[in-house]
């Protein structure tokens, strides 16, 4: 069961703006999804190794070489706001 205040808390963590009406709707549908999810409890998983990756392989490592070149102009060409090569955002407090 997810309350509206749960929804508001996780919405803030996820940086989503959700108004009262939406939080009601989401708390309903998310609670139903959570009930579905809790069907997992039917299975005893104690002692089972968690499986984060579908293939059982180790990390491949690359050599320490610089392979990328400066593409700032191109990459900033698609940015919402830049100046003097910097990405602009509302003032960061700190």
């Amino acid at each position, binding site marked *: 069961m997810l309350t509206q205040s749960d929804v508001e808390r996780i919405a803030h963590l996820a940086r989503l703006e959700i108004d009262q009406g939406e939080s009601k709707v989401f708390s309903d549908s998310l609670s139903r999804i959570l009930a579905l999810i809790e069907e997992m409890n039917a299975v005893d998983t104690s002692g089972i190794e968690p499986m984060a990756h579908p293939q059982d392989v180790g990390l491949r490592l690359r050599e320490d070489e610089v392979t990328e070149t400066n593409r700032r102009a191109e990459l900033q060409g698609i940015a919402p706001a830049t100046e003097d090569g910097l990405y602009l955002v509302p003032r960061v407090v*700190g």
Partner: protein
Amino acid sequence: MKWESVIGLEVHTQLLTASKIFSGASAMYGSEPNTQACAVDIALPGVLPVMNVEAARMAVKLGLVIGAEINRHSVFARKNYFYPDLPKGYQISQYELPIVKNGYIDIEVNGTKKKIGITRAHLEEDAGKSLHEDFHGLSGIDLNRAGTPLLEIVSEPDMRSAAEAVAYLKKLHELVRYLEICDGNMQEGSFRCDANVSVRPKGQETFGTRAELKNINSFKFIEKAIEFEIERQIDVLESGGEVVQETRLYDPDKGETRPLRGKEEAHDYRYFPDPDLPPLELDEAFIEAVRQTLPELPDAKRARIKRDYKLSDYDAGVLTATAKMADYYERAVKESKSDPKLVANWIIGDLSAYLNKENLSIEHSAVSATKFAGLMKNIDDGTLSVKTGKQALELLWKGEGADVTDESAAAESVIVKFDLAQIGDTTKLEQVIDKVLAASGAQVQQYRSGQEKVFGYFVGQVMKATGGKANPKQVNEILKKKLNG
């Protein structure tokens, strides 16, 4: 009440790789904003991380020299939070299974030795930088630093004073520089320290509430910040208050710590294993190969240099302050085949004065070890006096002799060009002495009649006639021979 302070340190060391930890962009410091932020670093949709082997090697290096366990299986996780300098909205870091765990460092404060535990050292990526100036109330984001490899080294809360904390930090600083895994530059932020400080009544087992002091960028400030914070917490507790668990910043101008501005959010980082990166598996061969590359460590080097070259503790300490310094010294001794004490004196004295004046480290010395060895050889064999030796060093420092391809001959070329050599040619010296004696009939008479004090007069005259370049030992010998013979 007697209080005891408890300090633990978290040190972020930027690893000296050429490229970033998960992308092929350059990790060099100081470039134009965002010119080293590639598609992966700016987190374009669809890009993926690929791990840099060198970052793993460097972490293992540190692990091996702090007597730690190297985890054969370590995991990269995502630490989720929103911040404009964090392009993906998560930082890739090691959480539950770090690459290095359970090590220690020995420190010494006022003659007392102590072991400081290191809980773990884990690999992660650095964030970019927010710049707050000049943008009409906006912040500018530079992502050049985003993705630079960091090794975060977390100590146990084993330190009991600011002095111990500084000793630990200096030891660690020296170590990472010896290992050449970090340049240790605190101003540029490649060696950053956060300190967890709490106090408790002496004898109490449980820890007090701690404050975290963030990003303090010099040894001096670390010491002052911790000292201030200990006093502050004691004051709070003695006046009946409670220490609040919070992040505090040190203000070097006012010499105080104060809470981070603004409301601190309760963090919930939602760590989970990064599905883009399978576990990092290190085998024995990998670790063994890294072990083979380990350099001689500071303490061992200090002891050996002291023993092999018969130096004082002080000299050995100065000459092993960095591995580069020790290398310079040992090369200069070896190539010049000179008295090791003489070479030590010249490096610690005159050469260091030049380096300090221009704020250079030894590896950027204008006079290379080979050139310096040439100079030492000529001082040691008497070709140069102390005075002309200093002249020769100054000339070499200013770039004289730079045109000589064989660096070992640079000093000699300067000696010839500026005619600095003592006159070592006996025949020539005998001629000068004969002239002096011939012109000093009265004094010769005095000497031969037993007034040996006038001997100094002859020496002075010879030196005057040679412009100070005669070898005093030789002059003595020849004079005695001629006067007594």
